[in-house]
């Protein structure tokens, strides 16, 4: 149960950072922290007491299926990390362009679009 608590703390902290902070870079960091929390949550879902990593070697061939942790959440996280990374890359490059054009990263000072 304690593992889920850490995941949720990450998510709440990230959401706080995303909503409250004015700096665009900090907002993007908040987004990454949210995703990290979710990944932690997914990984802990496959946890098992005394589990071993889901890799078969000639030594553990027979006992593998009794001790292995759940491989599917790890595969999902692997996919999800790449997606998160792509979002972060494109968000950071848009904010580079934003800084070039407005000379500021403060989201409260961006007022080109209104209404």
């Amino acid at each position, binding site marked *: 149960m304690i593992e889920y608590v850490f995941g949720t703390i990450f998510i709440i902290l990230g959401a706080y950072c995303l*909503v409250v902070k004015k700096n665009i870079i900090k907002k993007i960091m908040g987004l990454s922290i949210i995703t990290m929390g979710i990944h932690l949550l997914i990984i802990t879902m496959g946890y098992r007491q005394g589990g071993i990593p889901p890799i078969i*070697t000639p030594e553990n061939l027979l006992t593998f299926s009794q001790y292995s942790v759940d491989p*599917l959440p790890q595969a999902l996280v692997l996919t999800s990390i790449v997606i998160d990374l792509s979002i972060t890359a494109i968000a950071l490059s848009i904010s580079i362009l934003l800084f070039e054009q407005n000379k500021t990263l403060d989201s409260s000072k961006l007022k080109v679009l209104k209404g």
Partner: protein
Amino acid sequence: MNKPLLLISLTLLAVFVLSVLFVPNFSFFSNKISNHYIYHSLEETKAPNVVGGVVWDYRAYDTLGEETVLFAATLGVYMLFKKLHVRDKK
């Protein structure tokens, strides 16, 4: 952004997320499809790394989508910074 809206949204999110804790137990290996991966992965995919087998064989279509996401992001970044100075002088 004004304070009340922020408070409402944060409480909503906190309620949502804390409700994770009251979701009944995530039972391990009762009826999951990952049982199939653990028991049959080696003979079906010939890969001892079960995660690798799941990523590149059972769920290869997902991985194709993932690489497409990466390609799209790369293309977006590449397009964004291609000859920036031409636009910037306007």
